[in-house]
């Protein structure tokens, strides 16, 4: 099929369960101009180079045609650092990092290990006698959402509201805005605003009654760059809250699915849990939680693989395709949990590389180590499982597993 329809085919929901043959087409075709004027890159070295190229912007205001950008905010609202360039991106990310990680708070994530382990064990205890489990609903979703809420300081009682808002926001994201109805788009914008307002109010309360959470630290502990404004805090806390669980749910679910599909790897990791950190890196390569970065734009004409990507054109980097590039990885379609050479693009690379990566790593390592012994007598109820709509945050919507007969 013609390479200029790859974007359409990749975003087509019919291909969600197995987009990898399309990614192989990307490998063959290099940089491809799509029939809607966007450019698709799916080869490893080119993606890596573009992620480190200062001529490539993450700020959608550099798009020639603003209609190619999903509508996510209204005029006058602050933007989260994910959609900004340096030095603004750098400043906001640095301030937001202060209560999360090094250099200011290096122990925060490591200190969560015990909590995460306990949450995993509690969730698994509740599944002990069940014959049919939906891994997404009963394990892979509740774990990260509980953790990110505790980390930020969102009360557990409010988790259902967060869940509903997040669903509307994710549903409104697509690479092709035209695909999504006006109603759905508006619902996404409204959900984002409601979540931001909620987090703004919560941080106001933390101002007078601080606790040991990130929102309290963000409103109280300002460093050399000063504090975030209320509007900046709302935008960036919203980003952390959504990205803090909507991606990890995919990683844990994809991990479960992959281990159930690969019995040898399953047995090895069940018996040698100390191999899990490397196995999680392989999952990040083999079935990454974020498949593509849809929001890049060259601020000047940029030549890649003899193709000139014009200034202002939508540039889409297909990370999951780069991760399967045979020019970079030996046997790229093989799941090898002990893979040595594994500099994957699962969390992106460069200045926008995933802010929450260390949390996702720790959660997934602990979650899969805790889960694997319980999977002994389970099998996939459906293969492939039903997928979420999003081609960006790509992962199963449900992952039903059933107890095998005779046990």
């Amino acid at each position, binding site marked *: 099929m013609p390479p200029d329809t790859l974007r359409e085919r990749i975003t087509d929901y019919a291909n969600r369960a197995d987009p990898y043959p399309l990614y192989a087409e990307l490998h063959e075709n290099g940089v491809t101009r799509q029939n809607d004027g966007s450019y698709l890159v799916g080869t490893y070295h080119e993606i890596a180079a573009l992620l480190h190229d200062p001529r490539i912007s993450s700020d959608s205001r550099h798009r020639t045609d603003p209609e190619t950008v999903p509508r996510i905010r209204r005029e006058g609202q602050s933007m989260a650092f994910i959609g900004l360039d340096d030095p603004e991106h750098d400043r906001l990310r*640095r301030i937001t990092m202060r209560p999360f*990680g*090094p*250099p200011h708070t*290096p*122990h925060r*994530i*490591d200190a969560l290990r015990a909590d995460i382990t306990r949450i995993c064990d509690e969730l698994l205890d509740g599944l002990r006698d069940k014959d049919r489990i939906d891994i997404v609903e009963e394990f892979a979703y509740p774990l990260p959402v509980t953790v990110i809420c505790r980390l930020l300081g969102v009360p557990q009682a409010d988790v259902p509201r967060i869940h509903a808002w997040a669903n509307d926001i994710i549903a409104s994201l697509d690479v092709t805005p035209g695909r999504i109805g006006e109603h759905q788009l508006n619902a996404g914008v409204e959900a984002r605003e409601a979540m931001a307002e909620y987090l703004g109010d919560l941080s106001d309360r933390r101002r007078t009654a601080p606790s040991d959470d990130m929102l309290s630290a963000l409103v109280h502990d300002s460093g050399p760059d000063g504090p975030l404004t209320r509007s900046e805090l709302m935008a960036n806390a919203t980003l952390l809250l959504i990205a803090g669980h909507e991606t990890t749910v995919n990683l844990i679910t994809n991990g479960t699915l992959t281990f159930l599909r690969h019995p040898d790897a399953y047995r090895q990791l069940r018996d040698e849990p*100390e191999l899990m*950190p*490397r196995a999680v*890196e392989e999952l990040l390569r083999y079935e990454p939680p974020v498949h593509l970065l849809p929001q890049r734009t060259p601020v000047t004409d940029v030549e890649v693989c003899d193709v000139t990507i014009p200034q202002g054109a939508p540039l889409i980097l297909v990370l999951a395709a780069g991760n399967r590039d045979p020019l970079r990885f030996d046997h790229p379609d093989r799941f090898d949990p002990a893979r040595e*050479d*594994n*500099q994957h693009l699962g*969390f992106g*690379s460069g200045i926008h*590389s995933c802010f929450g*990566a*260390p949390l996702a*790593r*720790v959660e997934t*390592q602990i979650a899969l180590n805790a889960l694997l012994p319980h999977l002994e007598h389970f099998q996939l109820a459906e293969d492939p499982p039903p997928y979420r709509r999003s081609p960006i945050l790509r992962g199963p919507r449900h992952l039903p597993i059933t107890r095998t007969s005779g046990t």
Partner: protein
Amino acid sequence: MQIVVDLNRCQAYAQCVFLAPEVFELHGEETLMFMPTVPDDQQERARRAAAACPVQAILTGEQAGPGEW
């Protein structure tokens, strides 16, 4: 266990600091410092840190030298 970091490769993603904060440290915004001899109780963390390094810059292993094989 000894570690060495190829600081030419290092781009200060700091995954190692998150995962093994007693072994690795960001000194300033992006200067990575590490403890070349890893205490026994930190070896598991150091190995996790090495596995997670996005630029594969961390080498862990037995100390090089005579009498090693």
